[in-house]
């Protein structure tokens, strides 16, 4: 397994960035088919913020510093091409779309891992999680398929010699580790600063290669069978700002949280 990645001696870094598409944060969430399908009607889609702001930008920064290339990979249908082009406009060199309509994280991870094995990448960047299903699973899965280290929720990543020093978020703090290439990392806030594509980037993106490949066989071991909307919140109970004893009483006697 180890040889699927060919670490380069003179670091011309070959970096793979996994980019997903999610409904805009303000999208109205509704379902059709008796709660079995997400209603895409009128939903605006964006590049998953963690992928765009942090994973992609940090990969581009490393390439700019060390030399090399940044490849975007997305597992999805042709409708995702707009999001992929945006990634190219931000500064990735090339992209590949694995043509499928994935139903599970493992399916996605399997596709990306198979592609990564052929590519000889030094590192695979993911976002911390997608903001729709909040799995935070795909990166870990790719790492296991490739049998390489996985550092989740990276808030800082520097190349130092033939290793990377990566800071990751943990409960109430952070941890720093030295990690040999190749590895998979998931990107959190702090890793980079968002970049807005400029006109030149957008023009160049049109000419950058976007390859479409067919998926490999993979199973869906866990799938959504039913969606529900959460129960409506009841009206807020307003408390007189002069009477905080009353708020304390309510929290104790009614809400029973203190």
């Amino acid at each position, binding site marked *: 397994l180890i040889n699927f990645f060919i670490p380069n001696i003179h670091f011309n870094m070959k970096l793979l960035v996994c980019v997903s598409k999610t*409904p805009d*944060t303000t999208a109205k969430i509704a379902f059709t088919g008796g709660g079995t399908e997400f209603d895409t009607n009128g939903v605006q889609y964006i590049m998953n913020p963690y992928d765009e702001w942090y994973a992609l930008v940090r990969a581009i920064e490393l390439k700019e510093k060390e030399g090399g290339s940044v490849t975007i990979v997305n597992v999805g249908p042709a409708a995702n091409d707009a999001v992929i082009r945006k990634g190219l406009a931000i500064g990735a060199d090339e992209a590949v779309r694995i043509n499928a309509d994935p139903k599970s*994280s*493992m399916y996605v991870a399997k596709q990306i891992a198979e592609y990564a094995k052929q590519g000889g990448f030094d590192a695979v960047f993911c976002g911390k999680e997608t903001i*729709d*299903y*909040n*799995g*935070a*699973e795909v*990166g*870990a*899965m790719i*790492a296991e*398929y490739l049998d390489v*280290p*996985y*550092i*989740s*929720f990276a808030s800082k990543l520097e190349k130092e010699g033939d290793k990377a*020093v990566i800071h990751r978020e*943990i*409960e*109430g*703090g*952070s*941890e*720093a*580790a*030295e*990690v*040999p290439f190749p590895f998979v990392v998931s990107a959190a*806030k*702090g890793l980079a600063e968002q970049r807005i594509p400029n006109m030149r980037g957008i023009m160049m993106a049109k000419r950058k290669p976007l390859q479409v490949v067919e998926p490999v066989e993979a199973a*869906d*071991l*866990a*799938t*959504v*069978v*039913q*969606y*529900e*909307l*959460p129960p409506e*919140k009841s009206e*807020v*109970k*307003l*408390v007189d*700002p*002069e009477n*905080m*004893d009353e*708020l304390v009483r309510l*929290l*104790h006697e009614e*809400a029973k*949280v*203190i």
Partner: protein
Amino acid sequence: MVLVFAESQKGQFKKAAFEAVTFGKQTADALGTSCVALTLGSSDNAGELGVYGAEKVYTVGDDSLNRFDSQVYTKVIAAAANELGASVVVLSHSSTGKSLLGRLAVRLEAGSVAGVNAVPTVDGGFKVTKSVFSGKAIAQYEIHSNRKVLSLMGNSLQPAAVGAAVSPENLAIEVPASSIQVKSVEVVEGTVPLPEAELVVSAGRGMKGPENWGIVEELAGTLGATTACSRPVADSDWRPHHEHVGQTGVAIRPNLYIAIGISGAIQHLAGVNNSKVIVVVNKDPEAPFFKAADYGVVGDLFDVLPRLNESLKKFKAEA
């Protein structure tokens, strides 16, 4: 068998681990099987996991496991699951659990669901629920494979004492060498980490500046609550980044969330709207947060906070 990987912090098992064992026990009951716990590295109170329903507590005590490496941990937990014949593996949905869930799913060829919020139902398929679309919906997943890996969202259930402490047994599993080297670990001492906190006091841009946070900290101190903040507050370095809650920060579900001078933007709500009770203090009666609140105080936080703190102190003294 249900195998719960119980996480300790500095060798101590705490609420998140007890919740995971309680969840494992209830899942095992639903499946008509037993629940056991696994601990890695050195710890002090592993036997206590028995109280929450672990029939046995297995330990792989190798010192190298005191440093976390997802690759190594996955191999050890998977080997334990194989040796013990576990059909369900339960993790906490913590930074450690999230680093392991996907890896274990691949290694065990198991279907996985991250951030489960209730005990599975098992008639007519193994089904679990979780919150999706930033709390705007609940999804039910079915896991189709024989083996399953789940991570439990914090504060989804109360740890339930159902048994007695047991003596941990050593499990002989070879621990592979780690290829990463942990250099430093920095954690803020003395407070409950946000994802585990039951009481959270959070403040936003309405505070005007970092110099005003004293009243927030006092209130949190009186309550025994953990402090949090909105994103612009962390972005301006008024508060440390790990306090940032919301869609791009930490997602939490405490019993009580007090939001002070926070407008309640949808991206902020995304990380907090699963809180059981929300109190909003804002001088603007039109602030969107009031729509998501259970209790609201329309007023100037600089007046309201000291008053609330006094009332709480009085309440604590009487209790």
